[in-house]
């Protein structure tokens, strides 16, 4: 959501997204950075975004705006700050600034989370350090447009040029047990292309996808939502696990196949996701 657009800011919570990004960076012109910062601060203070995670994308710290963005926005306690062009040094610096602001404002230490926007070759190649440098980092968002620009390659709908980046982000995030969020699909009129792109990213292990237009939300949800058969199977796995526990069995099987930890983990994730999406209670 462009941070200087009051209409979009006030409606952002009712679009059906799990999280919304209130943007102070690329969607705001250089002459309106001060204005957007104040407006986003007031929106966070006054708009009821209910259960929707409120993320603010700040300007990079090496610009004249980044530090002031944090100084103003962190004080009204957004859920998460999205750090663009993330690298280890920048995340560390943001983390330290947040430590200070949380202490000054009486906000619980570590309450404000971070998502690292990986959109440079350097950030990608040092991703593990970027994640590890602060406990606040709960996810990585892959920025395909800036990354391909940095790599000097053309961005295509098929996305072969970000195949490696997607894999790298997924592996690092899974290793650190945080969310891997895929880059947006930028053609807002091509829903078939969006569904394909989302399915490809999901098959590589991405746990979510960003949207650049509210009209993309339903398609993304339908790709990421577990199917009825997957939910049923997951519930049966968890039931069988409970039964095995009651009977004191360490290992158990379902439909003649042994159920081990990865299968239980996957079932738990499927059920959690189904609950979040309101598919089961």
């Amino acid at each position, binding site marked *: 959501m462009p941070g200087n657009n009051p209409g979009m800011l006030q409606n952002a919570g009712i679009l059906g997204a799990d999280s919304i990004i209130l943007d102070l960076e690329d969607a705001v012109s250089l002459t309106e950075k*001060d204005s957007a910062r104040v407006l986003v*601060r007031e929106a966070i203070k006054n*708009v009821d975004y209910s259960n929707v995670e409120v993320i603010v994308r700040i300007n990079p710290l090496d610009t004249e705006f980044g530090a002031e963005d944090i100084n103003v926005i962190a004080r009204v306690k957004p859920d998460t700050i999205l750090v663009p062009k993330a690298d280890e040094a920048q995340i560390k610096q943001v983390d330290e600034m947040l430590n200070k602001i949380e202490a000054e404002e009486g906000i619980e230490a570590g309450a404000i989370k971070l998502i690292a926007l990986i959109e440079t070759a350097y950030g990608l190649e040092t991703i593990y350090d970027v994640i590890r440098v602060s406990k606040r980092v709960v996810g990585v968002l892959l920025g395909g447009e800036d990354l391909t620009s940095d790599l000097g390659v053309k961005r295509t709908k098929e996305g072969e040029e970000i195949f490696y980046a997607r894999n790298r982000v997924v592996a690092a995030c899974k290793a650190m047990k945080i969310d891997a969020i895929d880059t947006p699909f930028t053609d807002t009129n091509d829903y078939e292309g969006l569904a394909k792109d989302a399915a490809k990213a999901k098959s590589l292990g991405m746990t979510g996808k960003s949207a650049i237009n509210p009209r993309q939300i339903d398609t993304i949800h339908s790709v990421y939502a577990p199917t009825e058969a997957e939910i049923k199977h997951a519930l049966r796995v968890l039931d069988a696990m409970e039964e095995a526990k009651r009977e004191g069995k360490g290992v158990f099987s379902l439909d003649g196949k042994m159920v081990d930890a990865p299968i239980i983990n996957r079932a738990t994730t499927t059920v959690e996701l189904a609950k979040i999406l309101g598919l089961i209670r």
Partner: protein
Amino acid sequence: MKLDKDSIWTALNKESGGIKVKISKVAKAGTLESNDILVMVMPNDNDTVELELESIVMQQFGDVIRKVVLEKVKEMGIESITIKAQDKGALDYTISARVETAIKRALA
């Protein structure tokens, strides 16, 4: 706390019960898009707060908009200012934010 210009005058205002601040130039903030308000502020020498307001919801909300603008001006310690505002159905917090930005720009 970082001691920039903003935080110094905010702190002074809070702690001293109001050191009065004078704006020195014309500045504006906001747009004429729906749900927004365009606020223009100008210095004056009358030691008064003058507000000229146009709104698409003047009849229903004119008084509320006026109150929100004047409260923000007072909160920022400004006693001498002329404000022209064109409202396109902004919510209170948007009005407040635009007035704040316009005044900060006029002080910068």
